[in-house]
């Protein structure tokens, strides 16, 4: 499975070297690389089902510091690598129409994907951090060169926020490394190093917040809407779909895995908050509700989806904070589910609608009568929107249900307030659906004529393929969640048990 990383970076390098004038070559190459990555991910997932943690590579990287080049995967990693594979193929498909500097686009794209694969497969904290940082710079370039609204500002904000987050993680990493005796940076070794509780108490929030910035936790989420809107479609898909999951994964693997006692009660409590667990759970809950409410008020289509990402990631973080089997299961499943669904939503809004209508404002989209002129987009959005709402039969329902059950077991208030978020979630998707696609106004005869003349470009095969890929993924997992849960559950169990030092 480690080959996914190497293929991606190799693909990036070769893509950068491809001739600039021939975008088709770059696209085909990109598709080949992405599909290869997906194939490896699926093969690795299938091969790993039922096995526990598999180690792929373990080489000493810097012996004097005890840094290992350690690639390993347990159930959680396999699921997330699968997600990355799916998202990368979909992203390539939806970038089929990029003409400007195509080879460089895909070079940065695969550099990002390679970094993401690396994070999910790292078994060594230092290696994880390296890959995490590697993923930051391509994002900057992807957004600032090929983005749209306020792209330079959005890109810089994203890059700086991510970097600050990773700086916090680096501090935590160094602190943990030196406190554990400076022997090794392997995750397993650090977890068993017996870090003192007082140390964990301050290191955990530092590292958790560092990762949570990238995961879009309120109130550090402000880069997300701006960044998503500024980014080109494929980059938004990856950002919301996969990159935010890097942050959540880091929270789980590093934060909870290495510093479990950081979540213990402080011994005193302040308005019902008595531990970092309470703090972050409430922040997650606020994020759920806040993201949903703000999404409800947006006038720009893409902003709605951007804020909905903040809201859905809140579920992931809440699930992590429940610290029980079912809640964390739900969090990981939600990572997968939201990754696919958000990718689909951004694809529709960005590639299918915006590239044709050149506007994302509801006020302008409404009169365009898109349900008649772009029926595929309208119905695909119905599908994706319904999945995002958490309708049973799609992956989001099971994930959110598990998180809610877990939250209820931990603290009923968390579940109750999050429920409001779900309800508002229905509302904002509803509103977007109505305003963008299914407005009540019938076209006037004059408009009818002009619309007949200005037909939109037909839907291309890569768009069909991308929508199909993502749609099938969410449907399959929704109808048969065991396909992922069977891998996730043992891994979560091991992680939660291993943390009980």
């Amino acid at each position, binding site marked *: 499975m480690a080959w996914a990383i190497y293929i991606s970076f190799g693909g990036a390098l070769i893509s950068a070297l491809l001739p600039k004038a021939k975008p088709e070559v770059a696209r085909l190459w990109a598709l080949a690389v992405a599909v290869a990555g997906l194939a490896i991910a699926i093969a690795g997932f299938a091969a790993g089902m039922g096995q526990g943690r598999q180690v792929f590579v373990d080489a000493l990287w810097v012996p004097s*510091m005890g840094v290992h080049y350690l690639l390993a995967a347990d159930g959680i990693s396999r699921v997330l690598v699968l997600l990355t594979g799916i998202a990368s193929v979909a992203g390539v498909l939806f970038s089929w129409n990029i003409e400007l500097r195509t080879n460089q686009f895909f070079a940065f794209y695969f550099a990002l994907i390679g970094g993401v694969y690396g994070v999910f497969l790292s078994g060594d904290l230092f290696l994880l951090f390296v890959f995490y940082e590697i993923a930051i710079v391509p994002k900057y370039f992807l957004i600032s060169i090929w983005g749209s609204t306020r792209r330079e500002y959005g890109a*810089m904000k994203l890059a700086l926020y991510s970097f600050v987050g990773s700086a916090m993680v680096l501090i935590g990493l160094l602190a943990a490394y030196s406190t554990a005796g*400076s022997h090794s940076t392997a995750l397993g070794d650090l977890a068993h190093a017996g870090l003192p509780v007082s140390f964990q108490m301050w290191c955990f929030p530092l590292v958790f917040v560092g990762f949570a910035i990238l995961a879009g936790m309120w109130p550090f989420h402000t880069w997300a809407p701006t960044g998503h809107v500024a980014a080109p479609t494929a980059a938004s898909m990856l950002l919301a779909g996969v990159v935010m999951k890097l942050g959540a994964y880091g929270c789980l693997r590093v934060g909870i895995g290495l510093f479990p006692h950081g979540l213990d009660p402080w011994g005193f409590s302040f308005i019902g908050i008595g531990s970092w667990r309470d703090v972050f759970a409430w922040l997650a809950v606020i994020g759920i509700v806040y993201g949903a409410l703000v999404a409800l008020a947006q006038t720009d289509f893409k902003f709605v989806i951007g804020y909905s990402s903040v809201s859905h990631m809140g579920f992931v973080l809440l699930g992590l904070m429940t610290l029980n089997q079912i809640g964390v299961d739900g969090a990981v499943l939600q990572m997968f589910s939201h990754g696919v669904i958000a990718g689909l939503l951004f694809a529709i809004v960005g590639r299918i609608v915006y590239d044709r209508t050149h506007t994302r404002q509801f006020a302008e989209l409404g009169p365009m009568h898109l349900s008649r002129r772009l029926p595929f987009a309208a119905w695909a959005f119905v599908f994706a929107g319904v999945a995002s709402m958490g309708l049973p039969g799609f992956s989001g329902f099971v994930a959110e249900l598990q998180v809610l059950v877990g939250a209820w077991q931990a603290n009923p208030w968390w579940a109750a307030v999050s429920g409001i978020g779900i309800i508002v979630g229905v509302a904002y998707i509803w509103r977007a659906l109505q305003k963008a696609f299914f407005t009540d106004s019938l076209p006037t005869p004059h408009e009818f004529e002009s619309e007949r003349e200005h037909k939109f470009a037909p839907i291309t095969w890569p768009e069909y393929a991308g929508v199909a890929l993502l749609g099938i993924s969410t449907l399959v997992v929704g109808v048969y969640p065991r396909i992922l849960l069977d891998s996730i559950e043992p891994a979560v169990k091991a992680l939660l048990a291993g943390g009980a030092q």
Partner: protein
Amino acid sequence: MNYAALFRATLPETALEIAALLVLVVDLGFLRKVALQIRTAVAAVIGIAGCIAAVWAVYAAGWTGFSAGSDLLLAAGGSAAVAQVAILVLTAVTLLQVVDSGSAESSFTRNAGEYVSVVLMAAAGGLIISAAQDLLVIFVGLELLSLGLYILTAFNKQSGKSAEAAIKYYLFGAMSAAFLLFGFSYLYGLSGSTSLPEIVLGTYLASARGGTPLLLIALVMIAAGLGFKIAAFPFHLWAPDTYEGAPAPAAAFIASVSKVASFALLISISYAILRWPAMLHLKGGGVTFTASPAGTPQPPATVGFVPTWPMILMDLSVLSMIFGNLAALAQSSVRRLLAYSAIAHAGYILLGLAFFSWTNVSAQAILYYSVTYGLTAIGAFGVVGVVEHATGSDKLDAFLGLHKRNPLLAAVLLVLFLSLAGIPPLIGFWAKFNLFAAVLRTSGGALPFTLVALAIAFSAVSLYYYLQVLKRAYVMPSTDESPIRAHPATLGVLIAIAAAVVVFGCFPALLQNWIAGFYPSM
């Protein structure tokens, strides 16, 4: 005085001096009528040959060092050797870059031979400093280096900026040399010796008898003098102008070699401070102190050199980090940006010096950082030089659309600047990580943690201004789309530097093991 031993110990310096003289002779004697380009190339080649010879000499000279009587004057092996080899390699790379500026209309000077020989002599001064263990030897080496640097700054006779920068550098440098000498004289007065290890012991004894305020003054003076060399705040005022005004290869030399040499010197001083518990233990009684075994990383002391010096370094470090990064944010000239970032990087390294370890960990980390920073800085100035040559300015806007005008150059710029920002898997990241890990390994209290956190935070800030340049190169539309030509030799060197940054970044053990190889196993 065992002159044979002296000669053997100073073989590298001798090699450089011989090369310098050879360059002058060849250039002035034989090449008067030849085109400037060829003269430059010949001079550079001889200079590089001299560097290679000197490197061989470092390895061949053995690790014995040189002492006059019982005083160690020149050390060898360990940090000294690493620094010397590094200085020589960096000098060679700088000289390679000079080859480009040989064509008549683009050269910054007609005096190629003199330029190369001054470079070599300054490098020799750097070699001396790296090995010096005696105050007077330090001063001689420092002056040799500095004088060379002043001259190099002024080499572009057609540029007013060059002259202005050199004057500023010279005046400032002279003043700080005066400070340094003043401080040295107090140290001599307090301890009765000019050899570093003796000084430390002597000042301890002196301060036990109540001479601490004098020691404090001495240390501050010395910090001022040395701080000037490494461009730490508040002794940095020369740096922006010098980096801006000096010809590109000279600026590269200043940014790399003088930094490595100065930090090697600081390492020597820090080692001397930490060795005194061992010496006291060896010397035995006469002094009451809490017995601590020779391996203690934290000398317990409430008087003397020991607590004051780290505190001074810490202050310099923090101020440099803050000031350097914040000031760089506001720059519109890439050269000045690099200057302020150099101040910031000096701040990071000073942190490693403030929490210096008895084991070789800190020294190795500091050397690693300064060497890799030096290499990256040479590359950066190389790119700036090419762009300046083509567009006539080093402002941010001169870099617009670089990816179209010369994609290789833009790629090199990308790699180098990201390395400076500390992005993995490039060498700059590993250097920072290594350094901060060394700091935390040495002392694990709240203060080091906070300072490391501060350093990392400011590293994050630095990404912003490095990205500004990269943004111009890759993202923003360009006004002028004509291709930028770079001399193939220069481009080759830059690509090699970028490749080294990537390769050594991916496999940091390579360089680290090489450095560790110079130290005897503890």
